[in-house]
């Protein structure tokens, strides 16, 4: 399960960039560590897809100043003089190596959305609020329900491939904070929603129905548990390919204030 080796062979290169081949095979564990390092150190400028900075589409293996893993490690640690890419004095070499592992993995897994037609964020917004009825569970800015994950900044947090997977396979990966929760009180009332907190004696829930914050004594409950599946439907057949691409473009454009 864990020691899956990722074969880095699907790097996509564009003209004018150096052809970079990974010198190493990376483990899933290194890639996961790199994902966290990338989120903390790189994502703010480069974005979750690694394509926010002009001429440096690092999420697709397009590096203009590096041709080897070792050079990438050096570049991550030392920065690039004269650019916004600052040196990271606290970045250790092993941690920088995990970022390289993650970058290689990003390039190899980006194919799922690369095949989609170009999306239109404006059309996506209309679909999101209309045909998709996404706001019945999700909130963007000050509109929509608070029952599901707030998507106001989702474009800064998730890669397009991850968003695509959530749209077509909502059960594939549910982050712990987004697991839906169900409570049945001893007098038969049922509440479903988001579990915000719990301890040995109490539970704190956001009721999906009325969006009220509710606290329960566990001793007053008949049952309480996470709901196995995501309450979100799959949009695989609800949206066509173009519509999926439009919604993805809209979600990727959501970057908060």
């Amino acid at each position, binding site marked *: 399960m864990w020691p899956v080796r990722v074969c880095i062979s699907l790097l996509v290169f564009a003209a004018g960039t150096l052809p970079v081949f990974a010198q190493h095979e990376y483990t899933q564990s*290194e890639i996961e*560590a790199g994902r966290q390092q990338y989120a903390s150190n790189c994502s703010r400028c480069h974005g979750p897809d690694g394509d926010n900075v002009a001429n440096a589409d690092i999420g697709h293996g397009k590096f203009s100043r590096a041709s080897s893993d070792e050079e990438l490690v050096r570049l991550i640690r030392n920065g690039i003089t004269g650019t916004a890419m600052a040196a990271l004095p606290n970045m250790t070499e092993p941690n920088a190596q995990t970022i390289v592992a993650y970058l290689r993995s990003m390039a190899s897994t980006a194919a799922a959305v690369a095949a989609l037609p170009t999306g239109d964020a404006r059309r996506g917004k209309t679909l999101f609020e209309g045909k998709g009825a996404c706001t019945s569970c999700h909130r963007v800015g000050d509109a929509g329900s608070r029952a599901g994950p707030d998507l106001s900044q989702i474009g800064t947090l998730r890669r397009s491939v991850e968003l695509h997977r959530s749209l077509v396979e909502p059960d594939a990966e549910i*982050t*712990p*904070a987004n697991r839906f929760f169900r409570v049945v009180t001893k007098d038969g009332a049922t509440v479903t929603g988001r579990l915000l907190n719990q*301890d040995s004696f109490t539970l704190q829930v956001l009721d999906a129905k009325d969006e009220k914050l509710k606290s329960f004594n566990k001793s007053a409950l008949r049952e309480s548990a996470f709901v196995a599946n995501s309450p979100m439907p799959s949009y695989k057949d609800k949206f066509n390919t173009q519509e999926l691409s439009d919604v993805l473009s809209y979600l990727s454009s959501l970057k908060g204030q």
Partner: protein
Amino acid sequence: MMRRALLLILIGAGLLEAQVSFDRIIRSGQEPQNWLTHSGNYNSQRYSTLSQITPENAKNLELQWLFQARSLEKFEATPLVVDGIMYTVQASNDIVALDAATGRMFWTYSYTPAPEARPCCGRVNRGLAILGDTLFMATIDARLIAVDAKNGRPLWNTAVAKPEAGYAMTVAPLVIKDKVIIGTAGGEFGIRGFIAAYDAKTGKEAWRFYTIPGPGEPGHETWPANNDAWQHGGASVWVTGSYDPDLNLTYWGIGNPGPDYNGDDRTGDNLYACSVVALDADTGKLKWYYQFSPHDEFDYDSTQVPVLADIQWQGSTRKVMMWANRNGFFYVLDRATGEFLLGKPFVEVNWASGFDAKGRPIRVPGMLPNAQGVLILPGNQGGTNWYNPSFSPKTGLFYIPTWANYSSLYTKRPQEYEEGKNFGGGTPRPTIPTGTRTAINNYAKEDEGYGAIRAIDPHTGEMKWQFKMTDFTDAGVLTTASNVLFSGGREGYFYALDARDGKLLWKFPVGGRVISGPMTFSLGGRQYVGISAGNSLFAFALKQ
């Protein structure tokens, strides 16, 4: 003349009683109104004969006072109480003297540690020791400081080790006779650990025991002959030891070898890392040792409190030591000889399958960190850790703050030694999904790990009962002669259980993590229970 002599003797006796003599500490069981050492007494049972609070009336406990520390560091100290005065440490290194009845402050001694201090896990302190009218504090920049208990005036200040090389001290010192004994932390920074004794009057070093033997000393052969791994192999000490006055032996738990997760350059058992050592209290000479985790690569510090008791063992009374280890096993050893008597897992364990006749763990093949990552139970924080267990002679049960269903994915990488720099050689990753546990939110499921108090029969290692918590716990345990057990946890409750069956008797939301051990004392005929939690120190007693 006769009358005058008698008067002088009486005055002398009065003075002696006001001071905390070594004799008083040995006989601390006779004055349960006080809490004279970090663990309450030398046997470290965290058991008190005070019995005003009972399973029947515990529901009437109420807060008497609370002291808010001027510190946002973790509050790990167990206070001392001496004749109505409470002494504790506000992290990092401020000693405060409080009226134990009201929480009002008499004085504060503030020490500013050197900026070079670089402890791995917070600028914390676990408490003080007292002898005569002098308090002793080990500091985060590896100094030992003596302070006048009446007014907070510093008396001496001795450099124990170099903070810039990664040495730190978080331990509450242990006073034995005229010496103050400490150990050095820094296992994540490639130190060479030691336990040392200092003259209580002068602060001069009396003896030193290196927890990694040097060339020519027994045990040195458990480190490679062709490199200097032993010189920075860790084996730190950061939890207070125990003492048996009859055997004149002091017992200390030793931390992990370094690099923590990569043993390639330190082949061998790496003594005395992950061991308990029994030292002559006068000379620091090793009498015996037992190594819980030979050649550890999981950061299984054996920095737990050695719990001493004389119990019935196979038909006769035996002087034993009980030990719930971070590696997931519960042990009973003969504390006179170090003989292995029992080893039994108290949580899920997958790195060892049992023990050979001498008590050496039998390793499960392949259960070692590698580049890909190997899932090990218990995980990096262990089945338990440094927070104290308790043994109740009344119930005969041993109580363990436990991390259940808990694992880590261990990976290793090459590691060069550089003075004062982290010396890990790998990473243990939590296997529960990122974001599951944060300071304020907890959305974990039970199969992703939970905290518990587990009660173990030391004769068999079998669990008698457990009290489950939703979150993990770093809280110690206190038991009393009236069968009340006190503890807490990360989720911010302090509670009382029935020590016989684990039934919840009372709880109080302290509003912050309990990362310390409870203690008890009495004043004016009332029994109090003290606990540090969040950034405050709470005192509870029965409603009047």
